C-alpha cells in the first residue's frame, strides 16, 4: 500500500500542511480531511509543503481544486512550496501555476501571506 502521511503546524495565522510520500487516488482522502478540518477551524491561510512528497497523481491535484474557491472566498489562499522539479512539472502540464502561487520555500510562502495582510 502506498505510504502517505501529512502533518500540520501553525505558524501564526498560517497553517502549513506537510506532505510526505505518495499522493494518489488511494491516499488523497487523507489530504481532503486536512482541508476539511482547517476550514472547520476557520484557518484559511494555508501553505502546502511538498519537499517530502515523492509522487503525485491527478487525484492529488484534484484535492487542491476542490477547496480553493471556498478558501479564497473566506479571504484565504492555498500556496505551494518546496516542489521538486518532477512534481512541479506535473502541476505545470495541467496549468496550475496560473491558478496558484508556487514558492521555493515554505518561509517565502508564509512571508507572502504576512505581507499581503
Amino acid at each position: 500500500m502506498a505510504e502517505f502521511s501529512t502533518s500540520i503546524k501553525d505558524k501564526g495565522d498560517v497553517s502549513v500542511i506537510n506532505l510526505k510520500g505518495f499522493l494518489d487516488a488511494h491516499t488523497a482522502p487523507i489530504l481532503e480531511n486536512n482541508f476539511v478540518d482547517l476550514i472547520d477551524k476557520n484557518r484559511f491561510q494555508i501553505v502546502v509543503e511538498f519537499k517530502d512528497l515523492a509522487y503525485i497523481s491527478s487525484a492529488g491535484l484534484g484535492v487542491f481544486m476542490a477547496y480553493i474557491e471556498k478558501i479564497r472566498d473566506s479571504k484565504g489562499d492555498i500556496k505551494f512550496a518546496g516542489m521538486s522539479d518532477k512534481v512541479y512539472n506535473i502541476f505545470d502540464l495541467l496549468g496550475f501555476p496560473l491558478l496558484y502561487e508556487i514558492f521555493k520555500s515554505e518561509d517565502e510562502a508564509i512571508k507572502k501571506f504576512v505581507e499581503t495582510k
Partner: protein
Amino acid sequence: MKTKKITVKSRTENLSLIRDFISAAASEANVSTDDTENIILAVDEACTNIIKHAYKLNPEGEIVVKVKTAVSKFIVSIIDYGKSFEPQAIPEPDLQKYYRQHRVGGLGMYLMRTLMDDVKYVSIPQKYNEVLLSKKINVAQNNVR
C-alpha cells in the same frame, strides 16, 4: 519481445502495486528515470480511471496490466471488464471552469496523452476494455550493444 503481467482487484490500494510492477519492468528494460516516472504516472491515471469509472468503485473488478518491451518501445496494455466508455466524449480539461465547479475531470486522460507517445482505447462492449499506452524509450548509451 518480453511480456510481463500483473492482475489486481479494482481497488485504489493496489495502485502502488501496479506502480511498483511498472517500475521494475522499466528498470529491467533500461528505461531512463524520466521516462519511467512518466510511464508510471500514465499507468496510474489509466488504472484510477478504470477503478472509478469502469468499475464505479466496485472493489471486486479485475485489472490486468501487461508490459511488452521491444528494442526501442515500451508498451503497456491495461484490460478491464467493467463499463465501456467513449474516450472522445471526455472533454479537454479546463482549469478555469473547474475552479468554479470545485471539481476536476479529464486530468488523468490529458496527462496520459501528454506523457506517452501513443494512447489507444479498444472497447468490446460486454467483454472488455483495453487501454494501450506506448512510449519510445531512450536506452542509456552504455547499454547499447
